[in-house]
């Protein structure tokens, strides 16, 4: 029910929204919860396990009950707290976790079985028969106990991640935070002030108290003006600091577009990483519920929430309200209600010495012992002076005192410290480096002290930054906190809820202690207390106090569970911001990309690169047809393939040769300028890291080629070697992978093709196999390398990348007139398998030079990385799995990469495993599948038969073991 003249909502801006299909009205500034209460809607959800009718408990981000689905279709978001969601025109909200309408939820039957559904019930009951768990029990339980549902479709909303920096981060925009921000800014610091709610002011917006002789909200407005005037404060409303991390880093979740109708390109949320030199924590405190019997009915809520709804939103949450409190502070609720003309049925105070602060009926020393009302509260029973009295009431405001919001101070491992006088956990000293807790989160409850604490905290942050503290006096405000008593729970008949969100009652915690789960961590997991979306904000302290009682220990001995980030739930979409679709990883395109796709080539990913798989010709229906044709084309005419993705590293300096001798197993200092050599690189542990060719351009200038897969790894390795292992060597290097577009021109007619475009023709004499040098192509300076990965007479021609597209198109067009053309990765793979050339399929990280038959490449004349380790006994013995070629010889002709090798008669089981297959391809040259693999003592077993078994694909093939080089073992074709 809306109260005229109350609240900070904008009554000139009415909005209409829908809840469970019905249309309601609210005002700008309303939350979904306040607008529903204003419309008399008190039933807002069903509880997690028992499907009990529930209403709103709080008015803040700690809300455990009023969780809703917002939006429709793919953009639907479940588990949104109605106390956080602001209303806007067209907002669509639905209650969740129900079958049928909210007020006739079929699953409410669970509540009737509640005596059987206590903590540990599932563990004890659904154990047998074992296979029923996954197929039967779990799906049913998940349907019955749960939260909102996802749409199952990709979220169409836009989300953001961003970085922010400041000198001082102020966490919380209440009185403490506002004073801290102003002090920090006037002291010359750049400040970020982050506030969880839509408006700054904290509790001042929810209370009737005055600051500096003005209504709280008016003072807050003036403070915001003063902050703007400094030009130093970045205000971040709707931004919750979610975690404190190393080095002054804070996580924050900002609600950017969730409070307004969908706006094109506007992110819904932004996940911030804020880097702050200093921080002031002014997070306030959360009011504590009391666990009395049947304390979960709609209409029972926190006293502070009642004041928020009344004073901030202008809503009376009931027409006849009762207060159940343990402290003076909460009596203000009754005074505010009476002041607004709302009937107060009674005030029940657990303290015998409590006195009335106004004109209301007080039951001092009383307790609420049960309640009634199916879908909303109708009646409470109190125990007072040994008698029981029933009071008709539609709203019960409760207050068990306050718990300081210490969460962030615990995110780096500190445990909060119990304060016996305040009966509260307070932040441990220096819990987060550079963060100063101030105000209610540090146990300072009265407004006057909070204002002072904000100033002092900012001053200490300024001092740490070596900035001068400004002269600021705190404004006048109330310094009253009154007295309070702790009342964690009320004994009585019926269930008393601790954790509303996970349906955990006092009985469950006692049962946990009784069954031996006495540690607070065990109790948490046994009962699931504190494991719901509110992460125990409303229940942790009371639950551990109860556990302390049940186990005969004190509260500090019992301790708290671990407070972990995030402080509020973060949507997965926000965490994945920017990583959807193509944002997942960059795409690297070669200069020939559009020419390849124009020819219909399906592109495959090679690391981040996109490379053509094959080039379908007219009439070809399968990739194999294209691949076979391309292989034959290279063997018989000429093929063009973009090899720019291979890593290219320019290496220069007086010690370049010595450096290469150190990183490669073989010698490069002896290589003549104008020549290329194949090199093998080991890791420190003696296993093969990478291979490739390196060209010597001049005495002190080399260009190293790496594989596509290991380009980054090799670059990192070279940096490490240069900076850490051999800083004595004067050598400089940089990647030139991106500088050059490089194309393989392979096949018997390759030179003929090249001579049609080179400004100076080449021949065998000037350009023998493994030579390199500068060339000019169509007048453009480039480089030519006579190297071959196909076993054919072949070259790689490189030009500056800007000409890559043009040169590729020209090369392919010319090749096509010569019976050749473009070839893709599939053909490239078959060509190299025919030649027994290795890739990272073979040098996968667990093989040595010995395994691939290259141990003689480890030069005896010099040291190199990995040399000593490679000589270890276990790494050079024939019983290792060694590289072999495989050819099918039985009726089954198929080979598959990943298959394992066994003796022909042996059972294909793990114990009999003799090796595995790394690469296979159908060779049109030989008309059969060929494979490369590793076989125990394989080099000595050429000619033997082995059984190739692929358990996954169900392929079993008899193979002949042979030399890995199938094609032209003498290399005559390469030399031309």
């Amino acid at each position, binding site marked *: 029910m809306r109260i005229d003249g109350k609240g900070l909502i904008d009554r000139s801006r009415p909005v209409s929204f829908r809840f469970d299909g019905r249309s309601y009205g609210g005002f700008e500034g309303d939350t979904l919860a306040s607008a529903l209460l204003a419309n008399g809607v008190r039933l807002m959800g069903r509880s997690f396990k028992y499907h009990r009718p529930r209403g709103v408990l709080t008015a803040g981000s700690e809300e455990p009950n009023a969780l809703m689905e917002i939006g429709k279709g793919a953009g639907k978001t479940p588990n949104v707290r109605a106390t956080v969601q602001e209303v806007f025109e067209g907002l669509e909200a639905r209650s969740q976790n129900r079958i049928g309408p909210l007020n006739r939820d079929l699953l409410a039957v669970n509540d009737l079985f509640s005596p059987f559904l206590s903590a540990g019930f599932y563990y004890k009951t659904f154990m047998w028969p074992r296979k029923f768990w996954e197929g039967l029990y779990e799906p049913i339980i998940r349907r019955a106990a749960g939260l909102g549902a996802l749409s199952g479709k990709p979220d169409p909303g836009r989300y953001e991640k*961003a970085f922010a920096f400041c000198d001082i981060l102020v966490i919380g925009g209440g009185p403490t935070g506002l004073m801290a921000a102003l002090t920090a800014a006037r002291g010359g610091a750049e400040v970020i002030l982050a506030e969880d709610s839509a408006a700054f002011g904290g509790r001042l917006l929810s209370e009737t108290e005055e600051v500096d002789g003005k209504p709280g909200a008016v003072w807050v407005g003036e403070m915001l003006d003063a902050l703007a005037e400094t030009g130093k404060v970045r205000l971040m409303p709707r931004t919750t600091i979610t975690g404190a991390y190393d080095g002054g880093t804070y996580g924050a979740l900002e609600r950017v577009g969730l409070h307004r109708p969908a706006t*094109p390109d506007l992110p819904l949320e932004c996940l911030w990483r804020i880097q702050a030199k200093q921080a002031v924590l002014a997070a306030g405190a959360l009011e504590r519920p009391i666990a009395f019997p049947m304390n979960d009915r709609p209409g029972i809520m926190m006293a502070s929430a009642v004041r928020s709804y009344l004073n901030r939103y202008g809503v009376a949450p009931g027409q006849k309200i009762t207060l159940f409190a343990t402290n003076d502070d909460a009596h203000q609720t009754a005074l505010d209600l009476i002041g607004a003309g709302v009937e107060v049925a009674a005030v029940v105070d657990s303290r015998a010495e409590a006195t009335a602060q106004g004109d209301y009926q007080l039951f001092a020393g009383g307790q609420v012992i049960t309640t009634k009302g199916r879908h909303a509260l109708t009646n409470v029973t109190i125990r007072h002076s040994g008698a029981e009295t029933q009071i008709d009431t539609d709203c019960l405001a409760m207050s068990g005192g306050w718990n300081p919001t210490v969460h962030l101070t615990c995110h780096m491992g500190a445990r909060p410290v119990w304060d016996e006088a305040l009966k509260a956990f307070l932040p441990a000293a220096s819990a987060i480096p550079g963060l100063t807790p101030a105000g209610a989160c540090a146990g300072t409850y009265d407004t006057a002290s909070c204002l002072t604490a904000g100033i002092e905290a900012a001053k200490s942050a300024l001092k740490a930054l070596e900035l001068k503290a400004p002269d600021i006096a705190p404004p006048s405000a109330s310094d009253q906190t009154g007295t309070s008593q702790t009342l964690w729970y009320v004994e009585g008949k019926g269930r008393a809820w601790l954790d509303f969100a996970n349906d955990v009652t006092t009985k469950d915690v006692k049962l946990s202690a009784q069954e031996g789960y006495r540690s607070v961590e065990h109790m948490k997991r046994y009962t699931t207390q504190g494991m719901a979306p509110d992460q125990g904000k409303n229940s942790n302290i009371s639950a551990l106090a109860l556990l302390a009682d049940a186990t005969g220990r004190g509260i500090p001995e019992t301790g708290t569970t671990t407070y972990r980030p995030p402080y509020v739930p973060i949507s997965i979409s926000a965490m994945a911001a*920017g990583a959807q679709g193509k944002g997942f990883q960059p*795409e*690297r395109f070669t200069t020939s990309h559009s020419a390849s796709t124009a020819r219909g080539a399906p592109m495959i990913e090679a690391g981040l690169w996109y490379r053509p798989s094959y080039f379908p010709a007219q009439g070809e229906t399968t990739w194999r047809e294209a691949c076979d044709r391309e292989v034959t084309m290279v063997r018989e005419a000429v093929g063009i393939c973009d090899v720019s993705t291979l890593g290219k590293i320019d290496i220069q300096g007086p010690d370049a040769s010595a450096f290469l001798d150190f990183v490669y197993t073989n010698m490069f200092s002896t290589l003549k300028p104008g020549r290329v050599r194949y090199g093998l690189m080991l890791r420190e542990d003696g296993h093969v890291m990478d291979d490739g060719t390196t060209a010597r351009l001049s005495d002190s200038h080399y260009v190293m080629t790496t594989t596509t897969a290991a380009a980054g790894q090799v670059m990192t390795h070279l940096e490490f070697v240069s900076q850490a292992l051999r800083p004595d060597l004067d050598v400089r290097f940089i990647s030139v992978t991106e500088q050059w577009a490089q194309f393989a021109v392979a096949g018997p007619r390759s030179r003929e093709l090249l001579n049609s*475009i080179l400004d100076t023709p080449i021949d065998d004499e000037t350009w023998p196999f493994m030579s390199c040098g500068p060339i000019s192509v169509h007048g*453009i300076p480039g480089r030519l390398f006579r190297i071959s990965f196909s076993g054919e007479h072949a070259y790689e021609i490189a030009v500056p990348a800007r000409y890559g*597209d*043009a040169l590729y198109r020209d090369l392919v067009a010319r090749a096509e007139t010569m019976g050749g053309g473009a070839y893709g990765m599939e053909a490239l793979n078959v060509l190299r398998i025919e030649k027994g050339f290795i890739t990272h399929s073979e040098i996968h990280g667990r093989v040595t030079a010995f395994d691939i038959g290259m141990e003689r490449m480890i030069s005896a004349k010099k040291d190199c990385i990995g040399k000593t380790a490679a000589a270890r006994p276990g790494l050079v013995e024939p019983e290792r799995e060694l590289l072999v070629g495989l050819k099918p010889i039985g009726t089954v002709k198929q080979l598959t990469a990943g298959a394992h090798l066994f003796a022909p008669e042996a059972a294909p089981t793990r114990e009999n495993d003799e090796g595995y297959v790394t690469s296979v391809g159908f060779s049109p040259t030989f008309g059969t599948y060929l494979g490369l693999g590793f076989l125990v003592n394989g080099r000595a077993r050429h000619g033997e038969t082995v059984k190739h078994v692929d358990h996954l694909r169900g392929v079993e093939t008899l193979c002949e073991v042979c030399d890995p080089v199938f094609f032209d073992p003498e290399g005559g074709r390469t030399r031309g």
Partner: protein
Amino acid sequence: MASLTALTPAQDLTPITIGGVTLSEEVPEAIAALMPYAGQTKALSAALKEAHGLALPGPNRMTKSDSHRATWSGLDQAFLIGPPPASELATHSAVVDQSDAWVVLTLEGKGVEDVLARLTPIDLRGGSFKRGHAARSLLGHMNAVFARDAVDRITIMVFRSMAQTAVHELEEAMKGVAARASAN
């Protein structure tokens, strides 16, 4: 003789203007990586001054002359951007042509920092990343070189092969920032 047509790394992808910010491609005549040999840093700087009128930039800085600018790009490394470098520089330094290796994008206008705050972890506040400052960091997932050459202009260099992704990511960030501005 046939000729080869040159394409720029972000050919046809820019300019893009969203809100008050414009993303465009700069096509420098040449980019040369300068990597002074041991003990040659000062000599290289002097040679650079002599040849092109600017000093070798220190870590996280850029220098400028009428014809060239030099941007620090890593340990013992700077990129000389402008006409091709004088051959004398090679006496003191490895000089490697990088003209085709990078896409050079400039982001210009009020609020460039807000756009880049979505993509890079660098503190770009005016007092921290001033005119003449440079940094090597990330643009999204991409390795990048940043330099502020004017109050409202930041140059971003990313590998040529990633030009399309870089433009896309920047465009998305520009859209988000502009949408926030018009929503307020």
